[in-house]
């Protein structure tokens, strides 16, 4: 009931927490954390992994009854066969709407401290409600989620076993989903094998690409550490989504998002591109900035970037080779917003091919999963009247 306000408040609260965390890091000396093989994701102390919880989380992730009209599950936009994302530039939305950003893969989301394209949530537990309840994604609502789950005896039993709930509690839905997502990890790629000492894991071409990545192409400036992301925010000049000029449905969502993110009336009137981090900080200098994404599993997750502007690695490498691009927030007075870290790279065709080959080494076997059989509704038994 009373939709709307709740979500934006949740996001504001989450973003305050993150802003606090972010700054400490940037003060550190400008040494890029070295690239490395990826270990296991951190597990929060208040949500330990158990096999039962993971299994429950898996069912819930695939269960469309979490969504507003009981037709949209997490797995409808994070489709296992589409790299656990969605293969359109802009994600599908809740029925009757389209989203306005590219659907990110949930593979390896477990490692991230800043989730979503602009880092609006700092844990999987905090991220899931945003996804399940937002008007253009799940459009669900907490009371209705709890009410529906209470009529699925299998869930009542499992929530009781896992969390001790009398009736399934919505906050435990997010916890179980997070536990499941912590199993969706990809840390055994050719690159990881190489870094663990198997020198045959990368081809010669890929090794050359690896060197370019850390050297001439300077990707490592932002894509660093074991995760290949610094989890900071940059405006690379990724061009605006074409959809907004071409589709009425997309134009509606675009304007809705400005309202939902609480921009001023003045900005609402004139903005024509996704202002990214700005929506959280309301600092003009953050317009058009997005979180550096981790690069594993990208062989399965095209199209790329926050709005799906690029369809393959060749386009990405060309883009960086040109020193990035331009968008609404890199022009004129906003010119300062574009990161200074991107410069024309002067890569030869062979070097470009090497870099692409290296990007390919960041993905291993596809993570496959079929939709589990979901437990049915059943009536509640009659009870003796208390009053």
């Amino acid at each position, binding site marked *: 009931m009373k*939709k709307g306000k709740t979500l934006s408040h949740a996001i504001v609260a989450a973003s305050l927490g993150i802003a606090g965390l972010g700054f400490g890091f940037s003060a550190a000396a400008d040494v890029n954390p070295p690239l490395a093989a990826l270990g296991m994701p951190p597990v929060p102390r208040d949500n330990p992994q158990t096999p039962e919880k993971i299994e429950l989380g898996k069912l819930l992730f695939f269960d469309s009854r979490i969504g507003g009209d009981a037709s949209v599950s997490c797995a409808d936009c994070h489709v296992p066969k589409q790299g656990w994302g969605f293969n359109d530039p802009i994600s599908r939305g809740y029925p009757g709407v389209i989203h306005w950003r590219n659907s990110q893969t949930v593979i390896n989301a477990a490692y991230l401290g800043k989730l979503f394209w602009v880092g609006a949530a700092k844990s999987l537990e905090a991220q899931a409600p945003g996804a399940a309840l937002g008007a253009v994604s799940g459009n669900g609502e907490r009371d209705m989620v709890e009410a529906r789950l209470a009529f699925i005896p299998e869930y009542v039993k499992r929530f009781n076993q896992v969390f001790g709930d009398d009736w399934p509690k919505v906050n435990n839905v997010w916890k179980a989903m997070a536990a499941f997502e912590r199993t969706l990890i990809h840390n055994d790629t050719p690159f990881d094998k190489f870094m663990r000492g198997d020198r045959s894991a990368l081809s010669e071409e890929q090794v050359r690409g690896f060197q370019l990545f850390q050297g001439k192409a300077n990707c490592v400036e932002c894509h660093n550490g074991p995760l290949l992301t610094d989890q900071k925010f940059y405006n690379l000049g990724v061009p605006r989504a074409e959809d907004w000029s071409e589709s009425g449905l997309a134009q509606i969502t675009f304007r809705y998002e400005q309202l939902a993110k609480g921009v001023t009336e003045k900005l609402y009137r004139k903005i*024509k591109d996704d202002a990214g981090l700005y929506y959280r900080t309301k600092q003009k200098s953050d317009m058009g900035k997005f979180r550096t994404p981790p690069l594993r599993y990208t062989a399965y997750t095209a199209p790329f970037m926050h709005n799906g502007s690029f369809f393959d690695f060749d386009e990405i490498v060309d883009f960086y080779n040109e020193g990035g691009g331009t968008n609404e927030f890199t022009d004129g007075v906003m010119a300062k917003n574009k990161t200074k870290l991107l410069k024309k790279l002067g890569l030869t065709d062979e070097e470009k091919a090497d870099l692409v080959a290296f990007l390919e080494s960041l993905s291993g076997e596809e993570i496959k999963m079929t939709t589990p059989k979901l437990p049915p509704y059943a009536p*509640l038994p009659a009870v003796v009247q208390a009053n």
Partner: protein
Amino acid sequence: MNRTVSSRISWWAALAVGVAVIASPVVAADFGPVPMLKVDAKKAALGKRLFFDARLSGDAGVSCSTCHIPEKGFGDGLALSKAYPGSDGFRNTPTLINTAHKAAWFHDGRLGTNLNDVTREMITETYVMNMDMRLMQERVKQDPVYVKMFKDAGYGEPSNGSVRKAIPEYLKTLTSRGSPFDAGKMSAAAQSGFELFKGKAGCSQCHSGPRFSDDTPHNLGVPENPEIWSNPARHMTYVAFGMFMGIENYMNIRRDVGAHIRTHKADGSDIGKFMTPTLRELTHTGPYMHNGVMKTLEDVVAFYNRGGGDDINKDPRIKPLSLSQEESANLVAFLQSLSGQPLTGPEHVWKDPINVNYAVIKDWLKQKN
């Protein structure tokens, strides 16, 4: 569901209305045609289009008229209403004819402010239209027909605020007209039914005034509709409602507590009270009662004749009436005489097809949002 300040306030307002009505005893002279309300034609026309437009709901699949169907007296002809996809309703859809004359809405009377709030409630409620008002506003703005209609109606640019004004303006056009009762053309049977209504049968103790309602909740002992509690799709909607409304023990009750959600009496004596509905347009609006358990007007009269249902808190005025068969039939004839012309013409129904595909705004980069 987060309890909002406004809905709390509205419960108090609803209470205040109840008190005011009790304080002014109703006299028989109050019966009579429901007065027409002054409406702004352009605003009402806009409200009419919105009422029939499914894009006002979250999935763009449900309009007000999905449940409030003109041919069914702006009810839906079902015992229990539908709901937004994903579950089903737990109450009978009330008629909207004459609703603009009311001061407290819903079967439990929980909203006592105005139709603007009722409209918002219907649009945003998870199990009704499940819509984020901001998204609704942007959808409406995308439709050039609306842009013009809002402007012509004096609202300027489409906004969620003016949607909530225009729909109530339209609802004001839904006033009963042309019933045999109002026209003085009742049959002899209906005429004697009217006498019973005011006399032996005691109906007018609660069904008074032009709409035949005291706008107050009472307990008649109307039996539960078992379908609500045996069908998870309906029961879960009630559970979600119960959570939001703060119904005690909502997982373990199998009854609709009615106006108790407003008054929360500790002894539960207010459980099972429902608002007295209008008796106008009954021939179009069956099944009857808050949960649709009575199919026909004969069933309803038989129910009253038996002295209502079983409930320790039943209103003392509901007792066996010993009406003869003929008297019962006359009472039914009278109830039927309160139904007027169906409001199904273009004055009340948006007849033009609504193009629900959103046109693209050309030259978007150069246009102001």
